[in-house]
């Protein structure tokens, strides 16, 4: 499934897989988010019969639940590079309908890693980090998303931050303000089990905010 053309791992497992040796020490994930490009949906569906260790959820058709407790749930989400990041729609399908998140339009294919004999494509760090910062979820899910963004920031190299800055400049003012607002929230979050502790990283989070402000793009 993960080798289907254009398919990316897009959720909280990404920082774990970007760690040296895929150490997976940063985030305790609840599921594996698989980003499916809308123009690659048909090709991915052909591979569904090979997904023998999972079965579709009766409640949520884009979720496949594992038959073994040792495996993570799979959550398929749609990606449409032509979509406005502030929109969402449902890609109707009888076998694998997808919720297409506009924020995922910020993602582009990044490194490919070899994992247990298979090749897994990850998104570029900058786009995923910005997607987590721009998406306005509330409550626990929102805080977890911000801490995933933090996990990515802890791994970011200078070139990743430059790329993030470039992507930020292309956002509409309302989305830029959302990034600012979420960075201020991230800077003041307390620790949470299974997630990186944001307190030692407050200066880096503030530095990113000030860097984006310095672009003259302050919302």
């Amino acid at each position, binding site marked *: 499934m993960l080798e289907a053309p254009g398919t990316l791992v897009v959720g909280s497992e990404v920082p774990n897989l970007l760690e040296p040796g895929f150490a997976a020490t940063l985030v305790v994930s609840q599921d594996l988010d698989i980003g499916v490009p809308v123009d690659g949906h048909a090709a991915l569906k052909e591979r569904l019969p090979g997904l023998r260790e999972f079965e579709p959820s009766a409640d949520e058709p884009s979720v496949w639940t594992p038959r073994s407790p040792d495996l993570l749930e799979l959550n398929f989400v749609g990606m449409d590079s032509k979509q406005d990041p502030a929109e*969402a729609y449902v890609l109707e399908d009888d076998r694998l309908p997808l919720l297409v998140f506009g924020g995922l339009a910020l993602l582009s294919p990044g490194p490919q890693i070899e994992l247990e004999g298979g090749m897994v494509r990850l998104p570029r760090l900058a786009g995923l980090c910005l997607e987590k910062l721009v998406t306005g979820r509330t409550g626990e899910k929102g805080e977890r998303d911000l801490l995933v963004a933090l996990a990515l920031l802890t791994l970011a190299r200078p070139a990743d931050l430059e790329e993030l800055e470039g992507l930020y400049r292309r956002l509409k003012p*309302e989305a830029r303000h959302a990034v600012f607002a979420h960075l*201020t929230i991230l800077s*003041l979050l307390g620790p949470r089990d299974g997630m990186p502790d944001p307190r030692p990283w*407050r200066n880096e989070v503030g530095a990113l905010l000030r860097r984006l402000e310095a672009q003259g793009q302050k919302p």
Partner: protein
Amino acid sequence: MTTPSLDRQVRELRSQLLVRSWEYRQRHHAHGVWFRFRRVLVDAKEAYAIPRPEAEALIANGSHAEPVGSELQPPKLIIFVPAERVRAIPTARSLEVRLSADLLQAECLALVPFEGVSR
């Protein structure tokens, strides 16, 4: 195949985007005060609750009060000061830099900026 759960999620996302638009329009108005308050705290490495006379003395000696403090009700005196100045105040009480009850209840806040941050 009908997808009521996905349709519901789309509706929820669109509701959140409406809230985001509202927050954006409010950014310079009353409801934007929380964003502006958080923005000030982002630059603070340390925070201390200090007595009002100490805060007023700092202002008399050239520190300036952050405007967002007067937008809150009851108002707060929020002042950025160098670490050595605040440590010279024996009654200064250290607070964690987050939106805790302790920090929100403090009438006067002395904030120590991160190195290189000018306020």
